[in-house]
């Protein structure tokens, strides 16, 4: 009996102590309401704690996701860095993509994250806003210098309130190119490779490429109904028609402008009037373009250039000859919005911030290293010098259409909850409209209300 009492007491003691700790912390934060440390003060101006003496061995932890190509590229960069800076030891850890974000977040909460992390640019502003990333020191690169070196679209994802919170490796874009199936073009007796000057020409070809089995569309002429593609085409359509998807306050969105309405009408018409794609058969749930194209179900597929290296690995037996070719734009000048791209960020809790930033700089700003990283990972360069080097196409033969449009892109901007806007609002409502559930007017009204209601709720906190 004694034993039982003691066990229960011991249990209750441990439980009480734990609960008291949690409650005290919870209540103290509730009572004091201390604001988060501002991003300006989160990092000492000189890049954190003073660097250890030159001879002292410094150890850095570096995290990324476990995509084999990314791991291979990073391992080589770590090797190169070890040759240059033998006193810095980099412990590289990588995680399956699904666990990567959660690992970063839980470790940030415990302030035990790695010194350097590979982060997607479109996530950076949320973390920077929350004070969980270090500001890039000026002696690594100043903001004006960074704008000289990198394209605006990837770089601006790493900017928050005028400060830089990391350095990009990749320019992640979906616009500017499409997949084309040469066999289908030849069977339809269309010129190949296509050289479309305007969207009307692409749509005209796409109409001839569509195939039916009875009433069922078996081949989509032009498949653009994807979660990502619809959002990027929507932004591009608004920008090229001279509008802006941000409202005047640059915080809310304006998705009900005449330019937005015109763009939605165009996107809907391609599916419902031109019938280049059946929105019931090819959509967010069925026949994703990245798979359907390589099953010969799509003649022209709207997707970013990143699909090419992925498809070469995933679909080595795909018999049809195919290419990634330039896609037209609306109006005189191309103008599109892009998600930033993968790059390196540094923890404000790092004990060796100086060395962490130097490694980030080595990986992203050194032309040779940056090029190696892009070629190995099959990604579009964020560093202008790498992208402008004509010999790059020898290593990445599919990038021609994308390289041409890089200067015309801008960062998509801080949307508060990018995925909500993209998938829950734009993609969902556009597909519903294509499927006949809303008129174009209703669609833009719903999108505008939903997007701004989300933004308001985020601002309200």
């Amino acid at each position, binding site marked *: 009996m*004694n*034993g*039982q009492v*003691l*066990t229960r007491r011991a*249990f209750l003691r*441990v*439980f009480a102590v*734990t609960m008291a700790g*949690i409650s005290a*912390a*919870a209540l103290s*934060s*509730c009572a*004091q*309401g*201390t*604001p*988060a*440390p501002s991003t300006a003060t*989160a990092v000492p101006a000189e890049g954190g704690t003073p660097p250890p003496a030159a001879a002292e061995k410094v150890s850095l932890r570096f995290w990324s996701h476990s995509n084999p190509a990314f791991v291979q590229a990073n391992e080589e960069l770590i090797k190169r860095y070890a040759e240059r800076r033998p006193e810095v030891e980099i412990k590289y850890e990588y995680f399956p993509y699904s666990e990567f*974000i*959660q690992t970063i*977040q839980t470790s*940030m*909460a*415990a302030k035990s994250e790695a010194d350097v992390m590979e982060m997607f640019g479109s996530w950076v502003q*949320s*973390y920077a*806003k*929350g*004070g*969980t990333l270090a500001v890039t020191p000026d002696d690594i690169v100043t903001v004006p210098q960074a704008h000289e070196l990198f394209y605006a679209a990837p770089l601006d994802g790493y900017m928050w309130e005028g400060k830089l919170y990391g350095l990009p490796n990749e320019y992640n874009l979906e616009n500017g190119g499409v997949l084309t199936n040469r066999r289908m073009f030849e069977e339809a007796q269309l010129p190949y490779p296509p050289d479309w000057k305007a969207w009307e020409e692409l749509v005209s070809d796409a109409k001839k490429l569509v195939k039916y*089995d*009875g*009433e*069922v*569309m*078996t081949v989509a002429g032009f498949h653009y109904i994807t979660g990502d593609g619809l959002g990027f085409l929507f932004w591009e359509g608004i920008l090229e028609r001279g509008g802006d998807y941000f409202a005047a306050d640059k915080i809310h969105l304006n998705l009900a402008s005449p330019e937005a309405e015109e763009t939605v009408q165009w996107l809907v018409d391609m599916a419902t009037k031109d019938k280049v794609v059946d929105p*019931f*058969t090819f*959509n*967010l*749930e*069925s*026949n994703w373009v990245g798979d359907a194209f390589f*099953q010969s*179900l799509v003649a022209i597929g709207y997707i970013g250039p990143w699909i090419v290296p992925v498809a070469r690995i995933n679909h080595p037996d795909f018999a049809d000859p195919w290419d990634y070719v330039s896609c037209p734009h609306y109006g005189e000048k191309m103008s599109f919005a892009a998600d930033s791209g993968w790059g390196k960020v540094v923890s404000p809790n790092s004990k060796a911030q100086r060395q962490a930033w130097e490694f980030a700089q080595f990986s992203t700003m050194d032309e040779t290293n940056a090029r190696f990283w892009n070629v190995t990972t099959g990604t579009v360069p964020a560093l202008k010098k790498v992208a402008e080097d004509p010999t790059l196409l020898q290593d990445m033969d599919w990038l021609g259409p994308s390289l041409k449009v890089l200067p015309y892109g801008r960062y998509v901007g801080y949307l508060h*909850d990018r*995925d909500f806007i993209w998938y*829950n609002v734009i993609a*969902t409502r556009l*597909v*519903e409209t294509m*499927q006949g*559930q809303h008129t174009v007017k209703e669609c833009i009204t719903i999108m505008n209300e939903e997007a701004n*209601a*989300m933004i308001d*709720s985020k601002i309200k*906190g």
Partner: protein
Amino acid sequence: MATAIARRTGKLQRSQRVFAACSLTPIMLYMMAFTLLPMIWAVIITFYRYSPTRQGANFLGLGGGNPFVGFANYLDLFADTPTGRLFRLAVKNTFVFALLVLPLNLCITLPLAVLIESVSERLKTVFRTIYFLPTVTSLVAVSLVWGVIYNPTFGLLNLVLRSLGLKGMAWLSDAQTKVLGVPLPMICLVVTYVWQDMGYNLVIFIAGLQSIPEVFKEAALVDGATSWQRFRYVTLPLLRSTLTFVIVMTMLSSWQVFVIFYVMTRGGPGNATRTLVLHIYETAFRHQEMGLAATMAMALFLIILVTTLIQLRLLRKEWEY
């Protein structure tokens, strides 16, 4: 002598207690670390606008960028905002799903169990294995296979329909087509789920049927009862405990369904198949609103608790055999 025995027994009991304490303590610590503390943490963050992407004011990450908001997260679930509307839609969808799954599952598994129970022992094993196979198959694999079956272009279902001269359907992407007011994609997911899950209930029912003493059936037979009467007035009432267990467990798992929806539709088209757990997952890990997601999890807990209590109350019995 008696004192010696008592001392000896006491000594033995003490050593047993030490052994029990040593055996149970690691499990208890494990449970505390990975079950109890996360549960307490989940309750705490329902009172905060908490996201791990924001810097808190203390070592727990609370306060500061993750401010205390009292019951605001709970009120958000009932507000006329996109957040509230989406949550309520997810609850409604999950309710519809559970309501469809439960009778369908019972209507298939109970008669099937009775039929299997009536065949020879060898055949019984074969049938039991066949029907149980989907249950032990990975849910992701099941979802992918059914995704291909439902594919509007080359899916098996549409190929069969077309070969019969009928029109194919966009099974997972046409939310406008409704069956008894339920969107077609939801019906498709119910079918997939029941196919995968029914083996479990089948085995439970077979075990339940085997536990009914033969004497009751024999007595009914002597009284001249038909097969249907024996099933209706003998088997079914005596299966009540099993039935209660199956109903409660099926309802619980239906409310917590996630994998099939995540892999096959991700809540689409529109939000026609957005279920509560999927919505909680997306709120937490896609939209990074852990506080709100934890609040939804509390709501789910309450829904499941109330549903289970109602079922237990309705199916309560006053006797045992």
